[in-house]
């Protein structure tokens, strides 16, 4: 993706040249969770109740990267790799155990209010719409929370409507919306305050092909025409192929690849495939072995793979018994 994007105009504010708005820096970002683990053996439940065993789990282990303003980066990895935890540290929801994180020149977990003005997020099927309100009312309330005036609100919602076709269902209460409709409204909700950075944690999970394509078109527009930085986690490789030029692969809490998609393809293509034309799902299968089924969102038994090189082996040993659901990405 290009780094220099056109300035935003109209309902969306412009950006001053030379500012780092939209830039993300992570240095040695680490997150350790303490979990109470159940002991093996008879009466384990009672023993764990009386004397719980606390175990430290490293969900993210020394992750470093930098994302330039206006980039769309796909953050990929199997379940429990640490993608969502990393994103939640970037948003400021989670406080890192160690390391440095800066988004838009701010430390997100320390400057939450200022950070919230510049970032938006959609966390999979978790909706921020009010269950009993029509989607438009929820958007209006969120606009108030973000201090967006009524005129700007109308302009922005109209702009979202042009691609996401929200007007067809925005008078329907959130509880009655289909998944695809709800996520489209959530995308609008995440962008109502015109943030420079957008985090999307599996936004298209469970959607049909038509709606997925609509969402992709919307995201392309946000990056190419609005100059937003987008960090996307997904199990859908078609999405990655259509949207991202740069991918960050994470496994066992560590980055195992950070670069452009074509290099990744070239490194993992079969000899009889022309360079850069390898199917991305095949590339992931070759890169992650059996763990690729998790990365691709397929139901399969997960087995740790050490095919991703030196760092993976160490992390694999460290995280071999990591509870998958707790750390699921």
């Amino acid at each position: 993706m290009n780094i220099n994007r056109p300035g935003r105009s109209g309902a969306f504010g412009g950006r001053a040249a030379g500012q780092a708005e939209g830039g993300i820096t992570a240095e040695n970002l680490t997150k350790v969770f303490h979990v109470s683990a159940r002991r093996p053996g008879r009466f384990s439940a009672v023993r764990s109740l009386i004397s719980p065993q606390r175990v430290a789990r490293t969900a993210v282990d020394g992750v470093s990267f930098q994302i330039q303003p206006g980039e769309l980066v796909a953050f990929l990895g199997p379940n429990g790799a640490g993608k969502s935890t990393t994103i939640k540290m970037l948003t400021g929801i989670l406080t890192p155990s160690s390391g440095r994180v800066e988004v838009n020149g701010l430390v997100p977990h320390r400057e939450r209010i200022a950070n919230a003005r510049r970032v938006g997020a959609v966390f999979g099927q978790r909706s921020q719409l009010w269950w009993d309100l029509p989607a438009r009312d929820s958007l209006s309330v969120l606009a108030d929370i973000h201090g967006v005036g009524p005129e700007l609100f109308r302009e922005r919602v109209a702009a979202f409507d042009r691609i996401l076709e929200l007007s067809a269902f925005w008078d329907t209460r959130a509880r009655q919306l289909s998944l695809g409709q709800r996520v489209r409204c959530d995308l609008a909700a995440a962008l109502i305050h015109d943030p420079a950075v957008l985090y999307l944690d599996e936004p298209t999970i469970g959607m049909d092909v038509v709606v997925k394509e609509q969402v992709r078109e919307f995201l392309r527009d946000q990056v190419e025409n609005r100059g937003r930085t987008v960090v996307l986690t997904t199990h859908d490789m078609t999405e990655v192929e259509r949207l991202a030029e740069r991918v960050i692969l994470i496994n066992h809490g560590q980055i195992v690849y950070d670069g452009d998609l074509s290099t990744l393809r070239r490194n993992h293509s079969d000899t009889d495939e022309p360079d850069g034309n390898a199917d991305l799902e095949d590339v992931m299968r070759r890169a992650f072995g059996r763990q690729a089924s998790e990365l691709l969102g397929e139901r399969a038994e997960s087995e740790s793979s050490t095919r991703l090189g030196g760092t993976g082996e160490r992390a694999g040993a460290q995280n071999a018994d990591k509870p998958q659901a707790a750390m699921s990405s």
Partner: protein
Amino acid sequence: MSEVALNPMTGSGAPQAPLRTLADGRQSRRAWRAARVTVLSEFYEWGRVASTLGMLVIRAALTYWLWQALYATTKSSAGLDSRQATTYALLGVFYVAFRAVNRWAARDNMVQHMLEGTIAYWFLRPVSPRRFYCIKACGDLGYGACWGAIAYIVCLTTGVIAPPVSARAGLAALACMALGLVTLYYLRLLIDLACFWTVVNNQLVIMYEIVQNVLAGALVPLWFFPAWFAAFDRLLPFQGTLNVPLSLYIGRTPVNQFAGALEVQALWIAILAVLSTLVWRRASARVTVLGGSDDHDDGRGSRTRDPR
């Protein structure tokens, strides 16, 4: 692939230009308009409005008949006549209506946000979670107060309840009730904040409701309890939320004793405000919303905890 191919960093993470402005840390006043969510949510669900109305009417009617029956054979009990006792009990019912909003049905209470992981969005708004909770509570209170006020006016004009013994007593009761609502807000906030440690707080809410209703005099007026109990209860924050304002209203407590009750309430509000600030700070540092589609439970009975 065997090598880690990190994207070239410009320098070693050179600090980006800070973009703070004076307005950055300021929380938008427009955010208070979000308090309308309660009214909108209820009005889109007419079933809930009807059930709130039905509940209020049934409770008021049963309470009225109960106290009429209790005073059928006596003119005075514990120094109160039938009208005073009925007024006290009915005002108690209307006061409880202030908390009539069914947040559970609207999927908008703290437990549900914790369980579903949507609490994450509270930390992604330019309004602190603490203020957002307050805005929500004000919306709930405003909505509940409308119900209470309508019921009060209806009962007062039909002569079911008595007006305050004097204008001064009415004003003192109103002031005391306002402080009582602030106390209730902080108590409920602390119960909700427990979700950051326990995820669910249902049992805690039940315990709190029982203690609150008994010690505030909502179930039985406190003058029916032994003197030592009343003396002990006077030091707690509960009595000021119901018994004190209603006693002032019906003339059971003289207005000149109002200052003492006010001091106890003000002290409790200060204590609870400081406590809730500290607890919010701890809760914000330990919020753990995990996973793209699942959270909290790792499937083996253990829950993740932020070590901080």
